[in-house]
C-alpha cells in the first residue's frame, strides 16, 4: 500500500558505504543507473544499494501486510453485500501486494523468514498510518480515498525504480491500486450525500485521517538524510515534499466536491504557486508513531504475531505431507 524510508529521527545517514567498493565497478554501476538502465538480481551492485533496497522493499511489504488489519476489522460489519465483496477483494489485493514485494526483496538475498522475523520483533518498520484505529465504517472510505490515494502517488514514480524486480512489482501494484482509491471515495461520496449522521461520520473520518495521511509521505525534505542518495540511485524518484504537495492539490478539490471540509485552518490556494498552502504537520506525532507509539501499534503487532503463530501447525503439516509424498514417490 505504501512506502517511504522510516528511519528513526536522529539516526542520521547510516548508509555511507561501510564496505570499500571496487571503484571501477561502482562507476559502471552509477553510470548504468543514471542512464535509467535497470539493475537485475544477479548484476553487481554496491552493498549500500542492496541494503537500502532490502529495507525499503521489505518495509513496503510489511505495510501491505499490516495494512490488511485495519480494514479486515470491518469485513464482517460492511453495510451491504456489495461493500463486503469489494472490501474482501481489496484486502486480498493488499495481501497479494505484500507477497509481490517480499518476493522482490528475496531476489536481493534476504529470506522471507528473516523479513517476517524482523517485522514481528519490531526491528523492521512499516507505514505509520496503520497504527491508527478504524473506529467507524467511514474510516474504510477515508482509508481507500486518502491512504490508497497517497500510496498511488508515491508508487507511480517507483514503477521506474532502477531495480527491475521492484519496478515490476510496482507496475502490478499500481494497476490494482486505483480501484482501491475509487471504492474509498465512493464510500465517502455516499455518506456525504446521506443523512446528517452519515455526513457527520464522513467528516469525522476525514478529520482523523487527513494529517496521518500527509505524514505518509515521510519526513520533510530537509530532514530526510538518505533522500539524495536514493534519488541518485533511482529508487526514489521524487522528494517527500513534492509528492505531499501534489497529494494536497488533488485531494482538496475532491473533498470540496462532496461537501467535506479539510481540517486545516491554514489551507489556502496560492495563486503564484498555483498550489495549496497548508499548515504545519505535527512531526513530533509522526516520530512518536515511527518509534512504535501509535495508538494501536501493539494491537497490530500482536494480531500479526498471533496469526503467524496460530498458522504454524498448518505450515508444518504441509511440509510434512510434501516430504511424505516425496518419499512415497521415490519408493514407487
Amino acid at each position: 500500500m505504501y512506502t517511504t524510508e522510516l528511519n528513526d529521527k536522529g539516526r542520521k545517514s547510516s548508509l555511507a558505504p561501510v564496505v570499500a567498493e571496487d571503484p571501477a565497478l561502482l562507476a559502471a554501476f552509477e553510470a548504468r543507473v543514471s542512464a535509467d538502465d535497470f539493475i537485475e538480481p544477479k548484476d553487481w551492485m554496491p552493498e549500500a544499494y542492496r541494503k537500502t533496497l532490502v529495507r525499503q522493499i521489505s518495509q513496503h511489504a510489511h505495510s501491505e501486510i499490516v495494512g490488511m488489519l485495519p480494514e479486515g476489522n470491518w469485513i464482517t460489519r460492511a453495510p451491504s453485500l456489495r461493500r463486503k465483496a469489494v472490501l474482501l477483494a481489496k484486502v486480498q489485493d493488499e495481501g497479494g501486494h505484500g507477497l509481490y514485494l517480499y518476493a522482490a526483496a528475496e531476489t536481493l538475498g534476504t529470506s522471507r523468514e528473516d523479513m517476517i522475523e524482523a517485522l514481528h520483533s519490531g526491528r523492521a518498520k512499516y507505514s505509520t498510518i496503520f497504527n491508527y484505529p478504524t473506529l467507524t465504517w467511514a474510516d474504510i472510505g477515508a482509508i481507500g480515498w486518502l491512504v490508497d490515494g497517497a500510496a498511488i502517488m508515491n508508487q507511480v514514480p517507483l514503477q521506474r525504480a532502477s531495480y527491475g524486480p521492484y519496478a515490476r512489482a510496482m507496475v502490478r501494484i499500481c494497476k490494482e491500486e486505483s480501484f482501491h482509491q475509487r471504492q474509498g471515495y465512493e464510500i465517502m461520496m455516499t455518506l456525504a450525500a446521506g443523512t446528517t449522521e452519515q455526513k457527520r461520520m464522513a467528516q469525522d473520518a476525514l478529520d482523523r485521517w487527513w494529517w496521518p495521511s500527509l505524514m505518509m509521505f515521510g519526513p520533510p525534505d530537509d530532514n530526510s538524510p538518505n533522500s539524495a542518495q536514493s534519488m541518485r540511485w533511482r529508487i526514489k524518484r521524487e522528494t517527500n515534499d513534492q509528492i505531499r504537495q501534489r497529494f494536497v492539490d488533488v485531494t482538496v478539490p475532491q473533498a470540496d466536491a462532496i461537501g467535506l471540509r479539510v481540517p486545516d485552518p491554514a489551507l489556502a490556494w496560492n495563486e503564484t504557486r498555483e498550489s495549496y498552502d497548508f499548515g504545519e504537520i505535527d512531526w513530533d506525532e509522526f516520530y512518536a508513531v515511527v518509534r512504535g507509539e501509535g495508538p494501536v501499534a501493539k494491537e497490530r503487532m500482536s494480531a500479526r504475531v498471533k496469526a503467524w503463530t496460530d498458522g504454524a501447525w498448518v505450515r508444518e503439516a504441509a511440509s510434512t505431507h510434501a516430504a511424505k509424498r516425496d518419499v512415497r514417490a521415490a519408493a514407487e
Partner: protein
Amino acid sequence: MSSEWPLWEVFVRARNGLAHKHVGSVHAADARMAIEAARDTYTRRMEGVSLWVVPSAAITASDPAEAGALFEPAADKIYRHPTFYSIPEHIKNI
C-alpha cells in the same frame, strides 16, 4: 525453526497463442500448493489461462559478468541482419 517452504517461479500464459511469461514467485510446500498460491497471487484479474510453477532451485541462469562474452559477438556479425545487404531498390522484396 528454519523450515521455510521452498520458492517456486511462476509463469503465466495470458491467453492461448502466447508463451508462458515469468511473473514472480511464491513459497509453497509442494507443486500443487504452488499452483494454488500462484493462482491467488498472480491471476486475480483474468491475467491468464494457464500456469507453470518451477522450483527456483531448478533454474540455471547465465552469469551477468559473462554477458559480454556470451552476447557481444552477436554485434560483430551484422551480416546476420537483412539490412547488411544492399539490393537495388527496384528489386521486389520477398
